[in-house]
């Protein structure tokens, strides 16, 4: 068994990269490996409440993040500064998250065997 951290930087609707990374997350969870997620920079918008992408013909990726709970990806970390810089708070998000500060990010990453980034 190894521990996995998936670090997301990109905002939603910026190409298929995050959508394809979600497929790696689901596959890793299907292998019964412990998976955590860390949202940094514009990736905090991934979980913003009230997205209506289908009105522009796009896939609702926030809905995929919501399915992560079902596959037991329970630890979703979000950087406080990234939220604040964009005028957001955890109350604006569609999922419960663990907040951590920028100076704690390196320590979090060190705890995992495998780190993916998108």
């Amino acid at each position: 068994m190894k521990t996995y951290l998936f670090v997301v930087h990109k905002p939603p609707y910026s190409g298929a990269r995050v959508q394809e990374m979600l497929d790696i997350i689901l596959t890793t969870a299907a292998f019964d490996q412990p998976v955590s997620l860390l949202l940094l920079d514009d990736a905090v918008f991934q979980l913003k409440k009230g997205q209506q992408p289908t009105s522009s013909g796009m896939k609702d990726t926030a809905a995929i993040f919501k399915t992560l709970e079902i596959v037991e990806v329970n630890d979703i970390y979000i950087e406080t500064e990234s939220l604040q810089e964009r005028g957001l708070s955890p109350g604006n998000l569609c999922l419960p998250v663990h907040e951590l500060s920028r100076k704690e990010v390196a320590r979090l990453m060190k705890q995992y065997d495998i780190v993916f980034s998108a």
Partner: protein
Amino acid sequence: MQQSKPMKFAIQINTSPYGANAGHTAYQFITAALRQGHEIFRVFFYHEGIYHAFKHATPPDDELQFTAQWSELARGHGIDLVVCISAAQRRGLLCSDEAQRQGKKDQDLAEGFRISGLGQLVEATLEADRFIVFG
């Protein structure tokens, strides 16, 4: 060259040959690791990385032949080059089996590559001593 303790590496490549240099950097890393006696457990091509596996890429003679280099690496060292099936299908890269299933006639996959699923990537991360992502 000084020999370090042999390790088993898994590699993921995420960028296209002409969109970034990461694929070529990965190639150079792999050949250097092999020269030092390390093992490459698998190379997994994902996202735009799948463009390395297009058989019909025909760059001018005086440029790097990315796809041919990978095929040669597979031939010479028996390296497992795996292209993600869902990423490949999205971008129009089909091997003959898959094309047939879709009612098409393509055979786009270069020699030495094989198409498989994301389970192969997760397995590689579990089996290897080190997992390195390029791009």
